[in-house]
């Protein structure tokens, strides 16, 4: 941090004071118990696959951040839907981050070879998943806020050469907001290495 900053304006100075208080409160809360966001997002997490859709939304509500989208309760395959559009593109809509294998199978049925990994809170897949194809391919995302609580992406099966796999992994940002999760997407040619979940910190 070596930038030479100018003096703060009155507003900036007052805002700094308030925000430092927020940070101090969070630090104090974490000294004894996790802060409100951490509780909502982290507490029930025994499984490998993260269910984060619903819980993350709860996290947003608890923290009182942006517009909260209520997700309907659903089970089984309702966690996702895959459909082929009129123009030949394929759209996957994900309502809950669970059953990655089921989603892979569905994508496969729609002509998209995919490897999907949902990683535990606080972890990432290591990035060396295979030989990345360095050319542009259609990958349009729509965020939960645009989608009424679900995340979706659209790809074009014709973009993929034989032996290429769309690799998707979630990487959550700490605010627990679906919209700001980083969804990694890459096209890998040849074998795809399994996700090696490693601590994000």
């Amino acid at each position: 941090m070596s930038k030479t900053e100018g003096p703060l304006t009155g507003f900036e100075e007052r805002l700094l004071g308030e925000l430092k208080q927020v940070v101090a409160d969070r630090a104090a809360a974490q000294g004894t118990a996790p802060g409100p966001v951490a509780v909502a997002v982290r507490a029930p997490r025994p499984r490998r696959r993260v269910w984060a859709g619903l819980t993350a939304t709860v996290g947003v509500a608890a923290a009182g951040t942006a517009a909260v989208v209520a997700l309907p309760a659903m089970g089984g395959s309702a966690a996702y839907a895959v459909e082929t559009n009129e123009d030949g593109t394929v759209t996957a809509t994900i309502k809950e981050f669970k059953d990655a294998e089921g989603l892979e199978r569905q994508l496969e049925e729609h002509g998209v070879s995919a490897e999907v990994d949902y990683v535990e809170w606080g972890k990432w897949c290591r990035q060396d998943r295979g030989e990345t194809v360095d050319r542009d391919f259609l990958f349009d995302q729509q965020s939960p806020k645009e989608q009424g609580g679900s995340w979706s992406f659209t790809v074009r099966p014709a973009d993929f050469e034989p032996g290429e796999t769309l690799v998707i992994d979630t990487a959550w940002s700490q605010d627990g907001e679906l919209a700001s999760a980083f969804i990694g997407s890459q096209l890998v040619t040849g074998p795809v290495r399994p996700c090696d979940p490693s601590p994000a910190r």
Partner: protein
Amino acid sequence: MVSSSGEAVRRIGTDPQAFEAFYRAHVDAVERFIARRVADPHRVADLTAEVFLATIESAEGYRPSRGAPIAWLYGVARNVLAGDRRRSARERDAGLRLAGRRLVEADDIARLDERIDAEAQARTLYEAMEQLPAHERAVLELVALDGLTVSEAGRALGIRAPTARVRLHRARRRVRDHFAAPVSPPAVPAASGPRQ
């Protein structure tokens, strides 16, 4: 702009000193980022507060390999502004957790207005971008308006650099096609924008 190390950024959510350093280094960039999109000084103040609150809440998830702090910060700011735009004025006021405008006094208004005036040209371009598809617009905004490199813009948006480049290319072509009197995106304030 020289920015904080990744580790320092991760601590800003729980370490007031780390936060202060981060804030001092970036508050100017955040205000200008917002003034390129919003012309009301009170809302600039509210949104500046909201953006920093969002960084406090999401700092632990920051990963240096996903981009420089400024790219991450602009990604957060874009999300905050996008959320704000979708809300009505009343919802907006109710949703504020730390009303920045409460902290604004008379001489601050003058300073904020100066800043807003300085970004007038950028705001015109920003409004002109309404025509673009959202994903192309996002890249063009961050590059032409905010001075990020294409790869930084990609990281801010969670997309790969080649994808960002293609989208930028398409967006520029579309802007040229849409406007008879060419708005030339690359010439706008990129030179004065933050650079790593």
